[in-house]
């Protein structure tokens, strides 16, 4: 847990309050009956296939299932639990950027390559845990009951494929095309997995962390102080 920048912190409520929200444990202070009920219903149905869960009381629920249960979870949520509304589907690449944390260093790495950290950070998955580099996440709503749930699933690095949700939620069609294009994750059973935004001959998967954003690599990023010093000035008083 990284604290807020302390040099000029005038209010510490944000930093204090975030101390114990890390990891899988839900907030102990409050219970959330509606979301607990969703979780227990899923656990009753799928048992071992529910491999991770996170409930932020009064805010949100995230449940991680195994890839074998990915399609059946959707069916169960839609047909049995009333989550008829398809909200979105996407993926997360948890690989720490191999190009360094440009923003955190506050130094433009193209100008000063020495500032690049030598050791890559360890990969760390977010809410509801995970073991793989890629995770697919999707969100569905129960419109009448005013409930919603975010589902996550680990994508096996060697297979890079997932069962498609299109037979269950028709709206998943374009979202899976986008995820396939941006992350290179195959969706088995999708009726027409083809490019949605990029031209057909495009190579690479732009939203992967190891896909370089060239504009950022060759030019100082906007916001960095890149003013040349006047000949009379000796030191650069960079305004942090």
């Amino acid at each position, binding site marked *: 847990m*990284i604290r807020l920048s302390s040099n000029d912190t005038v209010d510490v409520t944000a930093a204090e309050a*975030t101390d114990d929200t890390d990891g899988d444990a839900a907030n102990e202070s409050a219970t959330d009956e509606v979301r607990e009920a969703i979780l227990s219903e899923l656990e009753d149905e799928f048992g071992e296939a529910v491999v991770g869960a996170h409930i932020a009381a009064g805010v949100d629920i995230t449940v991680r299932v195994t890839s074998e249960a990915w399609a059946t979870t959707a069916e169960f949520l839609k047909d049995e639990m009333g989550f008829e509304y398809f909200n979105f589907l996407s993926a997360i690449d948890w690989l720490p950027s191999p190009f360094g944390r440009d923003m955190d260093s506050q130094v433009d790495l193209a100008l000063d390559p020495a500032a690049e950290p030598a050791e890559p950070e360890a990969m760390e998955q977010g809410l509801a845990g995970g073991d793989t580099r890629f995770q697919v996440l999707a969100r569905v709503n129960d419109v009448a009951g005013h409930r919603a749930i975010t589902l996550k699933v680990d994508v096996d690095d060697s297979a890079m494929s997932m069962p498609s949700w299109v037979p269950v939620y028709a709206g998943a069609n374009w979202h899976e095309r986008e995820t396939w294009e941006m992350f290179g994750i195959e969706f088995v059973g999708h009726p027409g997995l083809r490019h949605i935004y990029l031209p057909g001959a495009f190579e690479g998967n732009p939203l992967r962390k190891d896909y370089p954003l060239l504009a950022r690599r060759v030019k100082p990023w906007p916001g960095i102080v890149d003013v040349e010093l006047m000949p009379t000035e000796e030191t650069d008083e960079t305004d942090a």
Partner: protein
Amino acid sequence: MTAVSSRQQLNYIAAQAADARVNLEIETEGMTLNIGPQHPATHGTLRIVAKLDGEQVIAADPVMGYMHRGYEKLSEVRTYPQVTTLINRIDWLGSFANEVPFILAAEQLMEVEAPPRAQWIRTVLFEMSRIANIVLFLGDMAVQVGAVTPVFFAFRDREHILNQIEAATGGRFHPNFDRIGGLKDDLPKGWIVETKQAMKKMRSFCNEIEELVMGNEIFQARTRGIGVVPADIGLSYGLSGANIRGSGVDWDVRRDGTTGAGGLVHNELDWRVWTHPDGDSFSRFWVRLQEVRESTKMVDQILDGLPSGPIMAKVPRIIKVPAGEAYVETENPLGVMGYYVVSKGGLAPFRVKIRSASFNNMSITPWLLTGVYVPDIITILGSLYFILGDIDR
């Protein structure tokens, strides 16, 4: 007002359209029609490849990407305050509303809450961007069926709103006014009185459109029973906003939000969610017209009850968002817009998934356009009301 004069007739037309989807016995030589990328109905550059059988569409395939700017990737190398500049340009007709869910997601991760006055002003600008956005739709929809005048009325009267947004934020189209923890500035002097006058003008604009467009026989003939979306289909495609409320689904994130987002004060106001049971192009138009009226009422109430106090919470000068994940969605002019923000505790977000309304709203078109007649393509696209920046991001 909601009642449709002859529902049986409507059902008959809808059934015919449904039949047409399967009733393709007569073998004729098909043709492929390219609509766009430049077309007034596309609000940007969208191409639709339609396979025709005579006058009937047998398959339609929208081709996107002409405006893809990669905001999700760009957000990963920008600080949180810089991201709002980008996302302003997603739905460019209601820009301020784009900023709000992202800022709320960042506030949720930082566990910061904007002071009451900031929340109220945020809500007033949020609703005004809805008015500015939908007013243009109300005029534009008439253009799609051949009436050119109403869109000039819309452009004329939208200026009243844009002037007020400009007076408060400095930007007519891209305010970039929302900040983590509050707002950039307080309202200028005399703004409240002028805005109330603008709301009166918007209400009379709504009446004008109702008489001029909605009562028009041609408009009704071109929109009623056309492009019918049943509620269950709409839900499985993830339609939102007036598109799903026009199919009779009583769901509005402003009232029924599931992400526990504070920061907006809709639940302290007296307003209602309008729905229409028909699910056709007309009902989507009708719901949007009522929404503008509700929004003007909300703006009036907010301006009457505006609390005093600071407009900015105490936040560090350099904003670092603690590690975590948050998804916040709001009811934007085009429908539900949400941001799934993943933070690793740095200056920039680790991953931002932008859930934009038009992407889902458009994904139904291959289903919806199948079986319709060529002139109805434009009416249906117009009534779904998408903005290309909101699809392509």
